C-alpha cells in the first residue's frame, strides 16, 4: 500500500466529527487573518476573521460591531481559494447534511451556492467555508446563524424567526411568514425612533423574555424603498435571487438604537384589508404556529428543543393579530398605543 493510500485509508476510518475538528484547528493554525473584527450576536460575543477584504465586505455589514466582554465564538470566513476543505464535503453532496457529534456541529448547505458551517463547541471555534467564494443573499444577511443556534443549545436562548422592535412600553416580537409585513412594521418603527432588534431573526430568552439583536441587517422589497429612503445608503446592495429582489440594508448607523429589551407582546402581522392598523386577540398556539415553522426549518438540529423554547416564548406575553394597514408610518403609533394598553 502506498503512503498516500495508507494515509487516505486512515482518514476514511476517522469519524466525520474528528476530521471536521482537525480541519477547524488547521484553519485557525494555518495563516494570519487579514481582516478581524468583533461583534455581539444575541447574548454572545464574537471574534470574526475574514480571509479577504471581499469576505469582510460581504458579511461584516450584517454584524453589530462592538467589543464584547467575552468571546464566545471565534469565527473564520474562508473560501475554497484559502483552504481546501473539499474532503469534508459529504457523499451525495447535492443533499443538505447535519452532523451533531462529539462536540462538533456542522451543516452542509449545497442549495444553489454551497456553504459549509462547522463549529467545535469545546474549542468555541467555528468556520464558514464558501467553496466558490459566493454566498446566497439570505446567508449574507444572517451569516452563520446555524452556528449561533448551536451555541444556544442547552441554554434558554433561541434564535427566533421574527422581527423585534421596542419603545418605552417594551418590545414586540413580530411573528409570521415571509410577506406578512414584519420588515415593513419593524423598519417603520425604527424610522420612528424605536429600538431595533432585527427584521428576520432575533435572539429571545425563553425563560425571561429578554430579546437581543443578532444582526443589524434588513432585507427590503423594492416597493418599500420610497417609504424607507433614509435607511438606504451606501450599503444598500440589491440582490435578486429566484426573482425576489431585495435591498440588502445594514442598519449599523442606528448605533445604540440597535438593541434589545423585554418582550411585552407578540404581534402576528397579517394583511386583511384594514386601512389603519387593527389588533385582534390571538392565542398562544397562533404565536407558536407563526414562529415555529420558519424558525425550525432554517435552524438544523434539536427540533424538539426549538419547539419547547418557541412554545415557552409564545406563552411569555399577550398575542395579537395585527392587520398593519396600508400606511406603514401609522404602524409605530398604533403599536405604541397597543403596548401601552397592556
Amino acid at each position: 500500500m502506498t503512503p498516500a493510500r495508507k494515509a487516505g485509508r486512515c482518514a476514511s476510518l476517522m469519524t466525520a466529527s474528528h476530521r471536521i475538528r482537525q480541519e477547524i484547528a488547521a484553519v485557525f493554525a494555518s495563516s494570519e487573518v487579514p481582516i478581524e473584527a468583533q461583534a455581539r450576536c444575541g447574548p454572545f460575543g464574537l471574534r470574526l476573521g475574514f480571509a479577504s477584504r471581499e469576505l469582510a465586505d460581504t458579511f461584516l455589514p450584517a454584524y453589530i460591531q462592538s467589543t464584547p466582554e467575552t468571546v464566545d465564538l471565534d469565527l473564520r470566513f474562508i473560501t475554497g481559494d484559502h483552504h481546501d476543505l473539499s474532503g469534508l464535503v459529504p457523499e451525495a453532496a447535492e443533499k443538505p447534511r447535519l452532523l451533531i457529534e462529539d462536540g462538533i456541529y456542522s451543516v452542509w448547505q449545497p442549495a444553489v451556492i454551497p456553504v459549509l458551517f462547522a463549529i467545535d463547541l469545546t474549542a468555541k471555534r467555528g468556520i464558514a467555508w464558501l467553496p466558490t467564494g459566493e454566498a446566497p443573499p439570505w446567508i449574507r444577511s444572517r451569516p452563520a446563524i446555524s452556528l449561533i443556534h448551536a451555541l444556544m443549545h442547552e441554554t434558554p436562548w433561541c434564535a427566533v424567526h421574527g422581527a423585534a422592535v421596542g419603545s418605552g412600553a417594551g418590545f414586540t416580537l413580530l411573528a409570521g411568514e415571509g410577506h406578512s409585513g414584519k420588515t415593513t412594521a419593524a423598519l417603520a418603527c425604527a424610522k420612528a425612533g424605536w429600538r431595533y432588534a432585527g427584521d428576520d431573526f432575533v435572539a429571545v430568552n425563553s425563560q425571561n423574555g429578554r430579546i437581543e439583536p443578532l444582526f443589524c441587517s434588513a432585507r427590503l422589497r423594492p416597493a418599500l424603498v420610497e417609504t424607507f429612503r433614509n435607511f438606504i445608503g451606501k450599503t444598500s446592495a440589491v440582490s435578486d435571487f429566484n426573482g425576489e429582489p431585495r435591498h440588502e440594508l445594514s442598519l449599523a448607523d442606528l448605533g445604540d438604537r440597535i438593541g434589545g429589551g423585554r418582550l411585552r407582546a407578540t404581534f402576528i402581522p397579517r394583511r386583511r384589508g384594514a386601512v389603519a392598523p387593527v389588533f385582534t386577540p390571538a392565542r398562544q398556539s397562533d404565536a407558536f404556529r407563526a414562529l415555529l415553522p420558519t424558525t425550525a426549518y432554517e435552524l438544523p438540529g434539536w427540533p424538539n428543543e426549538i419547539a419547547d423554547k418557541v412554545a415557552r416564548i409564545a406563552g411569555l406575553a399577550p398575542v395579537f393579530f395585527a392587520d398593519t394597514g396600508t400606511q406603514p408610518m401609522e404602524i409605530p403609533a398604533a403599536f405604541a398605543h397597543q403596548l401601552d394598553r397592556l
Partner: protein
Amino acid sequence: MALTTTVPQLISQQFDSEVVLANYQNGVYYNLDGSAAQIWLGLKANRTVEEIAHALADATGDDPASIAQAVQAFTDSMLAEGLIAEGTADARLETWAPVLSGAFVTPEFQRFDNLRELLLMDPVHDAGEEGWPLREPHDG
C-alpha cells in the same frame, strides 16, 4: 396493536386545551381543539380508544355508543394522517381525565399546509441526524 403519539418528525405542543402538531417531514401543521385534543391527549396518557370514549361519555353525558364510534373514526383518521402511529404505547399517566365542557362535538383536526412551499424552498430542512458520510479517498 398499541397506539403511540410519539411519531418521528412530529412535534407536539399542548396549549391549555389545544394541541398543535407539526410534521417536519412534510411541513403540515395541525390544530386539535375540543374533543379532538382530548382524544389525542388520552392516547398520549396511554388510554385505549374504549377508555377514552367512556371518559368522554362520562364528561359530556352524551350517548356512549355514538361517542365510541366517533372516537374510533377520529383515531383512524389520525393514524392515516400520521399524527399517531402503531407501536410501543406512551408511558401511562396515573390520572387522566378529559377536560371538556358542554355537549360532545364530533372531533376533527384543522390542517394547515400553507407551509409546504416554504419547506420545499428552504435549503436545509432536509438535514437529518443520519450522519455525515465521508467520501472514500481516491488514489491520485
